[in-house]
């Protein structure tokens, strides 16, 4: 059995990671369909789907609400599932608000939500998306409503940006850091933060010189408010990390065939392994297939100008297929023993349920991917 079919059948969480523009969201949705076909009640949680893909999944708005993919549309696309499948679109800001609302007392909550650092943290600032996506994943998984949750992730060039997010929160809120930074304030009678008031402390003086004393005080007030949630956060961040590292979870690294992508994918893969994650597969999406020699011969028997046009097109297609096949085999070697799967480039774009279904088949069946490889190999030999 294909490694991904095995994962879809037996694991609870599949996290699709990779750089932008390689079809991660599409493949996440395709995997959820395949999971449901294998009889598992599935959910795909997407970050920022293309409009047509979103509408194919029945998603019309953000809002963290899982909606079933229409059975009628699945039937119309000739997709036969053995279990229900749902989709949702993650709303980052709302997820943060929910997290705070859940963890804080009403008074604390208002103080945090009103703090301008919080407002930037949850909406404008880079880096918080990664954490909240993982946090949501934990919640979805723990709710037990679905047997399989497939998570699409924000595009990141570096695996660490994403997978370090809970550790970063833990690290910061970890006893040492928080205590050290917050000690003076916790000791003080007033809420007003005293990091700046550390007096002659070189560190606080230097920090205020750089970011401005008032900024530091405001940030500290925010952190102090957040620190009342310290235990909740720590527990949650630890749970998120534990879920990622557990046997329940597999990671699928999605990449493209372009040569420029290869090194990035190898680096990404290495850092996933360094963090002891279960990398179920590296998927190379949108691999160009070549033209079979007999088709090239048929083209050669035609009359010009059609013959010339076709020959030029065939030679271009074969160049692309040759370059992709070489790239895929180099990548396969570099990530071994992690299995590498390829999904061919479909003419047009993969947006409707039928196309998602066909793309997904390459991830779970033995034959489809081999055929694609054989076609690429044929082009190589041509």
């Amino acid at each position, binding site marked *: 059995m294909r490694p991904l079919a095995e994962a879809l059948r037996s694991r609870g969480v599949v996290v699709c990671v990779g750089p932008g523009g390689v079809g991660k969201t599409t493949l996440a949705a395709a995997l959820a369909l395949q999971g449901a076909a294998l009889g598992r009640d599935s959910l795909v949680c997407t970050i920022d789907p293309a409009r047509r893909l979103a509408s194919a999944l029945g998603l019309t708005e953000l809002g963290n609400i899982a909606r079933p993919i229409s059975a009628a549309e699945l039937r119309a696309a000739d997709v036969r599932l053995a279990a229900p499948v749902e989709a949702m679109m993650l709303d980052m800001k709302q997820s943060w608000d929910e997290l705070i609302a859940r963890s804080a007392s009403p008074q604390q909550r208002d103080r945090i939500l009103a703090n301008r650092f919080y407002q930037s943290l949850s909406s404008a600032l880079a*880096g918080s998306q990664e954490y909240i996506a993982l946090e949501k994943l934990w919640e979805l998984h723990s709710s037990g409503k679905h047997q399989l949750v497939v998570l699409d992730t924000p595009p990141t060039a570096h695996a660490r940006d994403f997978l370090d997010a809970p550790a970063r929160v833990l690290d910061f809120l970890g006893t040492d850091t928080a205590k050290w930074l917050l000690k003076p304030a916790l000791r003080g009678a007033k809420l007003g933060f005293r990091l700046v008031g550390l007096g002659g402390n070189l*560190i606080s003086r230097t920090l205020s010189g750089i970011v401005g004393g008032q900024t530091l005080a405001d940030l500290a007030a925010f952190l102090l408010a957040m620190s009342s949630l310290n235990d909740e956060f720590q527990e949650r961040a630890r749970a998120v990390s534990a879920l990622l590292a557990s046997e329940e979870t597999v990671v699928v690294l999605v990449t493209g065939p372009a040569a420029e992508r290869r090194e990035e994918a190898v680096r990404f893969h290495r850092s996933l392994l360094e963090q002891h994650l279960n990398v179920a597969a590296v998927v190379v999406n949108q691999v160009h297939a070549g033209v079979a020699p007999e088709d090239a011969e048929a*083209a050669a028997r035609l009359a010009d100008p059609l013959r010339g046009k076709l020959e030029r097109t065939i030679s271009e297609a074969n160049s692309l297929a040759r370059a992709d096949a070489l790239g895929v085999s180099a990548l396969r070697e570099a990530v071994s023993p992690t299995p590498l799967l390829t999904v061919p480039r479909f003419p047009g774009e993969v947006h409707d349920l039928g196309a998602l279904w066909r793309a997904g088949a390459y991830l779970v069946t033995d034959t489809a991917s081999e055929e694609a490889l054989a076609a690429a190999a044929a082009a190589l030999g041509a």
Partner: protein
Amino acid sequence: MTQLPRPRLLVVTGKGGVGKSTVSAALALALARSGQRTLLCEVNSGGGATALMGYPPAGPELSHLDGELWSVDVRPAEAMREYVLSKIRFQRVYHAVFENPLVRAFLRFVPSLAETVMLGKVCWHMRETDGPRKRWDAVVLDAPATGHALTFLGVPQVLLDTLPPGTMAEEASWMRDMLVDPAVTGALVVALPEELPVLESIELAAGLRARHLSLLAVVLNQATAPRFLPDEVKALAALPRLQALARGHAEEAERTRDAVERLGALGAPVLELPRLYTGTMDQATVASLGTRLLSGLEGRP
């Protein structure tokens, strides 16, 4: 050498995977070869754009590639260090404070700080002088992809909205002024002739406008020129696989035409780069793309 009437800071952005680095490298190479002292700035990318031209990947230190071409990969830790040292000037204080693990953890929790110091470094290069003139005739910024780019370029404004007056607010203010001045900064949005990249480019252009950045051009990468006539595709009915190939090509050309039309509505020139079939990039290829881009930007045929 005459100064062209175009902004010195060229910000290249677009959806992930559309070829931003290729466009950045091509533009930088062409500018340098036209005699302008050019700095290619990558943003924590590992130096990939520089590597596309066949040079070793750019590192955090400025490196001279060839002729008038330099490059650097702006990384958060090094940018932070440079920024802090420019403020406090004492190496030992830097070590004591910023290499303190607790402080590092503290600073990492403020993600905009990384963006701020990285963007700050880019803006700082814009201000560098060489005697009476600016050191760089052109700075090409290989910016992050859409969402991150808007966050990145919006950082000064967010800081201005967030911060009370102080050192960082002052920094944010001059950075913002530099970015929104169309005489200084122009953005190039890179797109592909596919639905999502086109839609995202249109949204990105709106996002740039909302941040008051001027859109210099849209670059349509991997454009396909028409080849097969509708009748020729029909004539291949007896050879279904070849017909599919021809139809696929015709559809790509059609998507290119459609993309040019939709992107053209953004009010900036659409510069087409042809789809390449080599699979790998080398300096000659990058240079030829760059020459096209530069001609397009300068309004030459």
